[in-house]
């Protein structure tokens, strides 16, 4: 397969950076780059996914446009990352989901919402959506237990498999056959969890101009840890329901609800802030053609969190049925889209950080 235009461009820019190296202190990309003399396709894929898009090296670049060298690493790497999402997606035909990804996310969400409503419509008695319920098991009056479990579980299993296979595909190319020690994996995970490299050498990212700020890093933390808390809430709810036989909904001071509230709040704060930053960010170092995908995932997460919190707030009213249907539809959409949205960047980024840790310690 001939190298894509963007790959050729990434190679050109890395050759300039490798002769310059002024940005070495910003992030892991430049020291990793300096280990190479020539850039193979997997090397470039790896470097692009190692980039956290802090934009520091754009504002600092003496060769940024209008210089004839036209170096714009964050933009080029964003486009190359997106190419790698398509390249490694599983099953391969679904890679097309990354084209017009914003639209795909929107349509999928509409589809899952319709599906949930359809299930409710066919499996429950009329009027279910508009009645209030209370007491243990009341959610299952809206969506029958079996339907909820089977659909959610199958989707999630498929998505997790797709993510895993995508990750393995990526590693086969970009992992360089490195033998990993548990220390490398731990270090890579730590870098991913702290977003050390989004710190621009400790001073933060450039959001809209030359000034540095840690806000993007902290907002991403709020979102990512919020997401994890919500996931933990779901798991603990499942545990209580199936293992302890305590069906939802749960009281305010229960593990699932507390985790859900914290996680939901984190998601709302994180995604709202990141959407705002994306709106005010300078277009120059950005890959605007990918904004659709970026906004779509942020919006979906925001909606999922907001509907969850609303459900909690109004579960004793007759809005409960509708809210639950909405929330479940959004969560289902999220499950479906995990491997076919910007979400995948977390997988490839972490793997790239693991390779970086392994190379650094070798």
């Amino acid at each position, binding site marked *: 397969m001939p190298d894509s235009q963007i790959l050729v461009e990434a190679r050109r820019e890395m050759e300039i950076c490798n002769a310059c190296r002024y*940005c070495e202190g910003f992030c892991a990309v430049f020291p990793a780059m300096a280990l190479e*003399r020539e850039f193979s396709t997997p090397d470039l894929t790896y470097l692009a996914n190692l980039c956290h898009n802090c934009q520091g090296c754009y504002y600092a670049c003496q060769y940024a446009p209008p210089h004839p060298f036209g170096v714009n690493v964050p933009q080029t790497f964003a486009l190359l990352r997106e190419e790698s999402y398509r390249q490694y997606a599983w099953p391969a035909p679904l890679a097309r989901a990354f084209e017009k990804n914003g639209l795909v996310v929107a349509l999928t969400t509409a589809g899952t919402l319709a599906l949930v409503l359809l299930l409710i419509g066919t499996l429950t008695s009329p009027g279910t959506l508009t009645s209030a319920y209370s007491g243990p098991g009341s959610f299952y009056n809206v969506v029958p237990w079996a339907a909820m479990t089977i659909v959610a579980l199958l989707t999630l299993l498929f998505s997790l498999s797709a993510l895993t296979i995508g990750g393995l595909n990526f590693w086969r190319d970009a992992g360089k056959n490195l033998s990993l020690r548990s220390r490398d994996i731990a270090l890579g995970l730590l870098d991913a969890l702290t977003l050390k490299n989004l710190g621009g050498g400790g001073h933060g990212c450039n959001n809209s101009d*030359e000034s540095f700020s840690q806000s993007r890093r902290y907002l991403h933390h709020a979102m990512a840890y919020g997401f994890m808390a919500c996931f933990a809430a779901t798991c603990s709810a499942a545990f209580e329901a199936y293992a302890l036989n305590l069906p939802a909904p749960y009281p305010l001071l229960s593990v699932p609800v507390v985790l859900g509230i914290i996680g939901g709040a984190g998601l709302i704060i994180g995604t709202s802030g990141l959407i705002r930053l994306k709106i005010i960010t300078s277009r120059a170092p950005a890959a605007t053609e990918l904004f659709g995908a970026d906004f779509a995932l942020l919006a979906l997460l925001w909606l999922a969190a907001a509907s969850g919190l609303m459900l909690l707030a109004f579960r004793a009213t007759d809005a409960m049925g509708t809210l639950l249907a909405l929330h479940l539809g959004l969560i289902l959409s999220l499950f479906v889209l995990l491997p076919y949205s910007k979400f995948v960047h977390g997988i490839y980024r972490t793997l790239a950080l693991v390779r970086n840790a392994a190379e650094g310690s070798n």
Partner: protein
Amino acid sequence: MTVKMSALSGIEGRKVDVLVVGGGNAALCAAIAAREAGASVILLEHAPRELRGGNSRHTRNLRAMHDRPEGVLVETYGEAEYWDDLLRVTGGETNEELARMTIRASAGLPAWMEAHGVHFQPSLTGTLSLGRTNAFFLGGGKALVNAYYQAAAKLGVEIIYDTEVTDLQLEDGTVRRVTAVSRGFPLTLLPRSVVVASGGFQANVDWLKEYWGEAAENFIIRGTPYAQGTILRNLLGQGVQQIGDPMQCHAVAIDARAPKFDGGIVTRLDCVPFSIVVDRDGKRFYDEGEDVWPKRYAIWGRLVAQRPGQIAYAIVDAKAAKLFMPSVFPAITGATISELANKLGLAPSTLETTISTYNKAVQPGNFDGSKLDDCKTMGLEPPKTHWAQTIETPPFIGYPLSPGITFTYLGVQVNERAEVLMQDGKPASNLWASGEIMAGNILGRGYLAGFGMTIGTVFGRIAGAQAARHARN
């Protein structure tokens, strides 16, 4: 456009405390210092915003004295050693009083810079030797310039881009009026104090031609195209005392495929010590292995400038290909010497003869690229005294070399208060200078890595503070 026009008409004819001419490191330090001393400040930068920052945006570090490890600076680097280094590179062409003052003041620079938004990083890979003496800017000179512009704007310095100062009208050692062309429109200002920090004249090819003749057409300017020397010439024409050899410029050998301006650091080629260098006629002309590269870096620009067509070619074989930093331009390769010669536009037979003569002269030795080793030639003129290895393993690799001009030495004379001196030895009453335009006072010859930024920062701060004090009295 209306906004810009009104901004302009807002300053036309205005009386301002301090006017700073230029937009690089020296100018920004002066503007910040003046504003912090309470003066109103306008800074006029010839370049548009995207290309602001002169040569300073291509820099990477600054040399700072330190008596104990400090921040990114390791071990110690005291005044005596710093002064020795300066004395060695300048061969004594320096003003000891100004030089020692600069060296001492350099100790306080990193803290001042950090307080104004500049961040540092450990010395870059491949430059470990500088980790003790030089503090590297995180992201390089453009990041530094960005930080200063932000700090200046925050303090309330008025920054106007796209504005070339064309005349500082001097009467009896006092600047009466400043004339500029701002985005194509004429602009007059009546500042109380003026700081000139407009760099050298290295980008003015016509001026270079006065000393170098037509050869200057083939020079490549490593930094900003805006270093035209307009104000330098303007001042020297009005009785300001000049300093520094007008004939001299700092020139290094760079890849001939570099753009005419602003190629910066990436166009450099470190392969010379491991290569043989031939001119357009395919003949060697100088000992490529005379000394370690950092010490010989600067003579090769001049050597190439003196060859016909101002061009030369460094040639290595596959053995040596990985001994130096990769170049930004692809290596030109050939499976045979004659194929390479054809690609470089050299006569194959001459190059073959040059290389086989050289190969025969190479003596056995223990190659060590990191120090002056014992690999040399015998019976060859000119000899290659270190790192001489045969050139016989294909593919053969060639890089074209051109003279790359870093800066010029000609400047205005100043005293320790950064006051510009007139030919009668008296300081001008309201004119200060900083940076490249006065660096010749201290660095009259040669080059000391990171010293240009040190001079600009030290004198920028002094000039700004003095100019503000004068304006407010």
